[in-house]
C-alpha cells in the first residue's frame, strides 16, 4: 500500500498524460515537472471545477458531521431512557448503515427527483407540491472570491492562534502565549498587507455552498446517523449510574446533569465519531456518483474528479495530484487523532 502511495505522489510530480500522445503509449515519455500540477489545480484557469469541489467537500464535511452528531446524539438520548421496543428502534435506526452508498444513493435519487417523492409529499397533506431542486439546483449561497482565499485562510488561522494565546495567558503559560500571539500578529499582518495584492487567478471566481448538495447531505446523514447513535448509546451505557445519582444528590437538574456530567464524559466518543465521519466524507464518491451522476459539477467532489481526470481524460499526473491532496486532507483528520491516542496510551503506561 505504501508503495502505491509513494508511486502516486511521484506520478503527481510528473507530466504523465498532459500530452495525449504519451498518455497511453507503450513506453510513455514521462518528465519531472515538480509542483506544476498542484499549481494548475489551485490557480489554473481550467481547474475551477476542482476548486469548487474543495469548497463542496468542506461544506459537505461540516454539515455531514454536524448532522450525524446531532441526530445520533438525539436518538441515543431518547433510546437511553429505555422506551418501549428499544431493541426494535435501535435496529431500525442502525439499519441504513448496512446498505451500501450506491443503494442509498439510488433510493434517495428517486425520492429527490424534481417531480417525485419528497416534493410530492406536501400534496398528501393537501398543500401544493414542493418545487425545490434537491439535486438539480444550480444556485449557491455564501459565495466568496477564490482570490480572497489566502486572506481568509490566514485570518482564520490567526484567530485560532489568538484564541490559543488567550487561553495560554489564562493558564499562566507565558512562553506559549508570547509565541502564539506573535505568530497571530505576523499572520494577521501578512493577511492585511500582502494577501490582498496576491492574485491566484486573473479574474475573480466565485465559489460557494451549492444548494444541490443539501440532498446528498440528507442522504449521507440518513445513512450514518444510526451509526453515530450506536456509538453514543455505548458511551451513555458506559457512564456509571453512580455518577448520575451523585449529580442528582448534588441537586443537579436534568439539563444540568447532561450539560456538566454526561456530555463531558461523551467527549472522547464525539472525537472518534468525528474522525470516522470525517474521513468518510472526504472519501465520498459512490453516493455522489449514484445520486447526481459523474458529470454534475455542482455536486461534484474531488474523489469523483480524480476518477474522471485519470480514467476519462487520461491525465494521470493531474489525477494523482488530486489523490495526493485528498490524502493530505485525510491526514489532517487522522494524524491528530492517532497522535492523541498514542499520547494517552503512553500516559496510561
Amino acid at each position, binding site marked *: 500500500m505504501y508503495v502505491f502511495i509513494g508511486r502516486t505522489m511521484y506520478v503527481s510530480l510528473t507530466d504523465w498524460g498532459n500530452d495525449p500522445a504519451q498518455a497511453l503509449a507503450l513506453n510513455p515519455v514521462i518528465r519531472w515537472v515538480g509542483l506544476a500540477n498542484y499549481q494548475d489545480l489551485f490557480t489554473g484557469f481550467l481547474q475551477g471545477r476542482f476548486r469548487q469541489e474543495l469548497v463542496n467537500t468542506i461544506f459537505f464535511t461540516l454539515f455531514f458531521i454536524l448532522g450525524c452528531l446531532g441526530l445520533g446524539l438525539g436518538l441515543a438520548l431518547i433510546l437511553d431512557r429505555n422506551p418501549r421496543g428499544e431493541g426494535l428502534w435501535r435496529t431500525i435506526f442502525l439499519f441504513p448503515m448496512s446498505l451500501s452508498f450506491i443503494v442509498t444513493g439510488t433510493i434517495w435519487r428517486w425520492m429527490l427527483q424534481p417531480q417525485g417523492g419528497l416534493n410530492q409529499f406536501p400534496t398528501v397533506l393537501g398543500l401544493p407540491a414542493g418545487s425545490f431542486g434537491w439535486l438539480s439546483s444550480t444556485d449557491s449561497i455564501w459565495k466568496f472570491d477564490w482570490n480572497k482565499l489566502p486572506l481568509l485562510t490566514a485570518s482564520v488561522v490567526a484567530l485560532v492562534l489568538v484564541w490559543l494565546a488567550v487561553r495560554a495567558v489564562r493558564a499562566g503559560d507565558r512562553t506559549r502565549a508570547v509565541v502564539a500571539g506573535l505568530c497571530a500578529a505576523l499572520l494577521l499582518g501578512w493577511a492585511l498587507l500582502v494577501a490582498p495584492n496576491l492574485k491566484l487567478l486573473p479574474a475573480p471566481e466565485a465559489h460557494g455552498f451549492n444548494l444541490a448538495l443539501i440532498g446528498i447531505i440528507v442522504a449521507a446523514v440518513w445513512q450514518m446517523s444510526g451509526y453515530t447513535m450506536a456509538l453514543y448509546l455505548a458511551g451513555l451505557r458506559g457512564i456509571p449510574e453512580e455518577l448520575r445519582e451523585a449529580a442528582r444528590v448534588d441537586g443537579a437538574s436534568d439539563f444540568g446533569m447532561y450539560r456538566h456530567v454526561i456530555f463531558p464524559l461523551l467527549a472522547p466518543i464525539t472525537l472518534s465519531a468525528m474522525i470516522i465521519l470525517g474521513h468518510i466524507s472526504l472519501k465520498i464518491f459512490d453516493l455522489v456518483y449514484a445520486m447526481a*451522476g459523474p458529470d*454534475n*459539477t455542482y455536486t461534484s467532489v474531488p474523489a469523483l474528479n480524480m476518477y474522471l481526470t485519470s480514467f476519462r481524460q487520461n491525465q494521470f499526473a493531474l489525477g494523482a495530484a488530486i489523490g495526493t491532496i485528498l490524502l493530505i486532507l485525510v491526514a489532517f483528520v487522522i494524524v491528530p487523532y492517532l497522535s492523541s491516542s498514542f499520547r494517552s496510551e503512553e500516559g496510561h503506561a
Partner: protein
Amino acid sequence: MNRIQIKKALLIAAALAATSSAAAAGKLEIFSWWSGDEAPALDALVKLYKQKNPGVTVDNATVSGGAGTNAKAVLKTRMLGGTPPDSFQVHAGQELIGTWVVANRMEDLSSLFKSEGWTKVFPQDVIALLSSKGGIWSVPVNVHRSNVMWYNPAKLKAWGVTPPKTWNEFLTTCAKLKAKGVAAPLVVGENWTQQHLWENVMIGTLGSQGWKDLWAGKLKFTDPKVVAGFTTFGKVMDCANKDASGLSWQQASDRIADGTSAFNVMGDWAAGYFTTTKKLAPNTGFGWTTAPGTSGTFVMLADSFGLPKGAKDRAEAINWLKLAGSKQGQDAFNPLKGSIAARTDSDLSKYNTYSKSAAADWKKNKIVGSMVHGAVAPESFTSAFGAIIDQFGASKNAQGAAAAAQQLADRSGIGK
C-alpha cells in the same frame, strides 16, 4: 452392412475431428457496450458472422453502461495490460484517434478500405473524420444524427407556432411560448445533453465550414463568432427548464410527449424511444426537423470497430471488420439498432419512417462530426468541456467560457 456402418462411423469421427479442429483454430473476441435494447442488433451481426465463418467461436464481451463510460475504463485496463480484445467498439473519429491512435496502439486500415472498395461507398466527409496521420483507423457500422429537434405536432398547433429555422427565430418563438404560459419552451437534461445542445447552437451559428475550421484549429474559440455562439447558447438556455441536471435524455423526451415543453434537441436515438417505448406514431405523435440553422447539414456520430495492435486473432478480426463494413452486415445491424448505415447504398426498404428521411439526408447533406459524441474532439476535451458549460451556465460569461474552451483545446492538442 457392416462395412457401411464402419464407413459411417469413420465419417462421423472425421467430421467431429474437423469441427473440433476448426473450433480450436478460430476464435474472435469483440468488445462493446451494446447491451439491453441494443443487444439484438449486435446479436444479428454476430449471427451473420458465424454463418460466414462457421467454426469460429465468437466471444461477445459486453460491458454495459450508457455511452460506454464503464466499457472504456475496462478497455483501457486491458490495452495497458497487454491483452487487447480482437476488435472493440469505439465512437468513430477523434475519440479513437485522440486516445489510441496517437498512442500508437492501432493498426492502419487503409488497405482494407481500398480492397473492400469502402473509400467509394462511405461519404468522403466520413473518411476524412476517420483519418489522421495518413491512415484510416476504424470501420463505421452505423450512423446517428445529432442535429435533430423533436416536437409534439399537436401541441405546436395548439400554441400556434412552427418549428423555428434559425436560432434567432428560436428565441422569438421562445418568447412567444413563454407569453402563452409555457414555462420552459425547451427541455434539456443532464450535462451531456446540454453539451449536445451547445454543439447544435454552435453549428447553427458558425455553419458547417466554420465548425470544421474550429476543430482543425483554424478558427479559435476566442474568435468573436464563437463568442457570439456562446452568447446565443446562453439565451437559448434561458428558455430551458431549471431542473435539467436531474433529467436523463429519456425523461427530457417525455416532456415533449406530454407537452410540458415544446422542443428538445437530441440525437436520433430519440426516434426509437418515441416509437418503441412511448408507442407514438412518427409525424403525428412526434415530429422532427433539423436543429435551427443546420438544415443541409448532417451532424454525425458513428460507432465503429478498430483493430488494436497485438490482437490475438488478427485474421478473424479482419473478417469481422469486413462484415461490419459490408452492405449485408450494415443492413442487418442498423434497422434493429435504430440507426442508419454508414454506406450510401443501403436497402432503405428495411428501415423505419424516421430512418428513411435520415438516410436521404445522409446522401445529399454536408457531413460534419459531433463534438460531444467523440467524432471531432478527443475524450480529453469532451469530458472536461462539461465543466466549462456548467460554469458558463452559472456565470453567463461568454468571453470567459470561450477563453477556457480555447485553453482546453490547446491542452488536448486540437489543431495540431
